[in-house]
């Protein structure tokens, strides 16, 4: 069954690593739904979080192929159950006297912030699970979204509870 998977990939922080990983996905016909890359605290090490889709066999191939790359140090699948997953969105939404209070209310419900204000628009920032961000967008849509940008998702494994 097609399903979204989140891969946490530790790579050497060398030029060309992103191309190697992205090139592998395109060459083998795998999907990248979103990708986030940044340095870690380890020297010369970066972490990529890639959201991808496919059945378990495809996921197994993706993982194995990634591991073949010399610059890839570790590949780990993160699941919704055992990890925290977040995405950030910036939304510029139409705002006038009649809708301002609605926007503030919605922002509060979603734990977001207003980070820029102009005469007829507000820019909101919100962070949350993919589903939460989608519902925020759905609720704001009738007001008129002028522009939007989303980060890829990032995720971190939860610490296992000692039993």
């Amino acid at each position: 069954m097609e399903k979204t998977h989140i891969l946490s990939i530790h790579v050497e922080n060398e030029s060309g690593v992103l191309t190697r990983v992205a090139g592998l996905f395109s060459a083998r016909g795998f999907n990248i739904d979103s990708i986030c890359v940044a340095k870690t605290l380890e020297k010369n090490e970066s972490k990529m979080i890639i959201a991808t889709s496919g059945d378990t066999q495809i996921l197994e191939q993706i993982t194995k192929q990634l591991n073949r790359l010399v610059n890839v140090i570790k590949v780990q699948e993160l699941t919704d159950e055992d990890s925290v997953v977040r995405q950030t969105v910036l939304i510029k939404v139409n705002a006038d006297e009649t809708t301002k209070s609605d926007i503030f209310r919605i922002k509060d419900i979603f734990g977001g912030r207003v980070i820029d204000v102009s005469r007829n628009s507000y820019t909101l920032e919100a962070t949350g699970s993919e589903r939460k961000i989608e519902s925020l967008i759905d609720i704001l849509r009738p007001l008129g979204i002028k522009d939007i940008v989303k980060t890829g998702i990032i995720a971190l494994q939860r610490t296992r509870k000692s039993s």
Partner: protein
Amino acid sequence: MNHNSKKNLMTGSKIIMESLIREGVDTIFGYPGGAVLNIYDELFNYKDKIKHILVRHEQGAAHAADGYARASGKVGVVLVTSGPGATNTITGIATANMDSIPMVILTGQVSTNLIGNDAFQEADTVGITRPCTKHNYLVKDIKDLAKTIKEAFYIASTGRPGPVLIDIPKDITSSVCEFDYPETVELRGYSPTYFGHHIQISKLAAEILKAKKPLLYVGGGVINSNAANELKELAELLDLPVTSTLMGLGSFPSSHPLFFGMLGMHGTYAANMATSNADFIVAIGARFDDRVTGKVEEFGKNAKFAHIDIDPSSIGKNVKIEIPVVGDVKSVLSSLIEILNNKTEEISSAKYERLDWLEEINAWKYEHPLLYRMNDIIKPQYVIEKIYELTEGDAIIATEVGQSQMWTAQFYKFKNPRTLLTSGGLGTMGYGFPAAIGAQIACPDKTVFDIAGDGSIQMNIQELATAVQYNLPVKIAIINNNFLGMIRQWQELFYHKRYSFSEMNVNPDFVKLAEAYGAVGLRAKTPEEVVPVIEKALSIKKPVMMDFVVDKEEGVYPMVPTGAPITGMLLV
């Protein structure tokens, strides 16, 4: 060595030479150009230690290094210039990558300050070769040069082998740095698994004893891992029938009573029937290529699968595997044999119970052996049979791609590993002749053939000059049907004989061509002339090009049409 001298300073070019020597390199295949002039100048000082073979086209250098690697088991080394020098090697690199052949390719690059400027003879070599190398590097700092070379050889030759490219800007080759060749490599993201997991190997041992209709399906991994002896020991220990991929030919003696030939699209009837009727198939260093499996859903449809491979990504890629064993074939087979050796009673009862199975496969073998019909025109298969007989199966045979390649696989009975050099994965026409040159350099005392078609030989014919220059007695046998034969065969079978641009309306006179290059040209037009021509070629210690004028419309059979299960064979 003067330990008091403060620093062992060297130019980048000299560092390259010293590093190559430390990697045991004594031969490189190359072609000079602007960006590698410094390296070539230094190479001139090292010509007693490192033999440089000047090819006539960079593609020839890559294939020759590949042939050298396949024949010798050593890493093949290529040296070419930037831009077109590098791009000309791409087909050779991709060929080696698909067949897991260890190579290191050194390419020149424009100086670091010019990179990205569209400079003269600049190409993004690392970008272009990323998908067709095992790994590649651009050396941006001379301090990294020695370490990079060390890593490149290590990566190329370990795990599942493959080509590694190092792109070296011209200024790096002239700048100066202390030379200190690293003893070891540290790569956090690269550590191949050599020893198979003992639980998996025990499971495999149990299953192999339990199976009623077992089959070994072996591939190029057996050769890369130098595991032919272990394979033979295992097969004989349990009377296991063996079938091989194209890449695996030579890993098991073709004349052995347990060998049933190649499987797949042009496999033998017995091998394909055995695969479809087996109840347990052990894939050893093979990767379930589509030319092997045919319709993949029906491949080994009655069997459970075990798979031994050093590359985890090969396991379970196309076919579901019940017993995966990640590890080096040689090491895993040794452990497996060790376990089985303690089970003498089970072995003898298993062997007894399987007599029927072997009989069944042998019946298929006698029902539909590989055959062809002789008449007064030369049959391609006859030429290859005679080459086999006259070389007693001891020659190194390189092939091009197409019908001549498949007939070679079917009719030359390979005895030993590293004696068939063929582009199995990429299917590169033009591979065979330069590969034969590389093999002849690696094995000067062996008889080396390139079995070619009239189409493919023309793809790297310029290397005749290389063969003549170094006096390499390579024998080229052209199976000349004035067609791109395999294309013609498909057009005959699947396109209503519409021979769309597959006829070679004009071919050179290959005899005169050979002579023009300073080689020897011979021709056979009738079956009676075949043996004398081969005998004469074998007696000449020079490059010889033999033109065998063969039946134009002969086909390769058995043949499994694309998408059909491998039991759906068209027979002769």
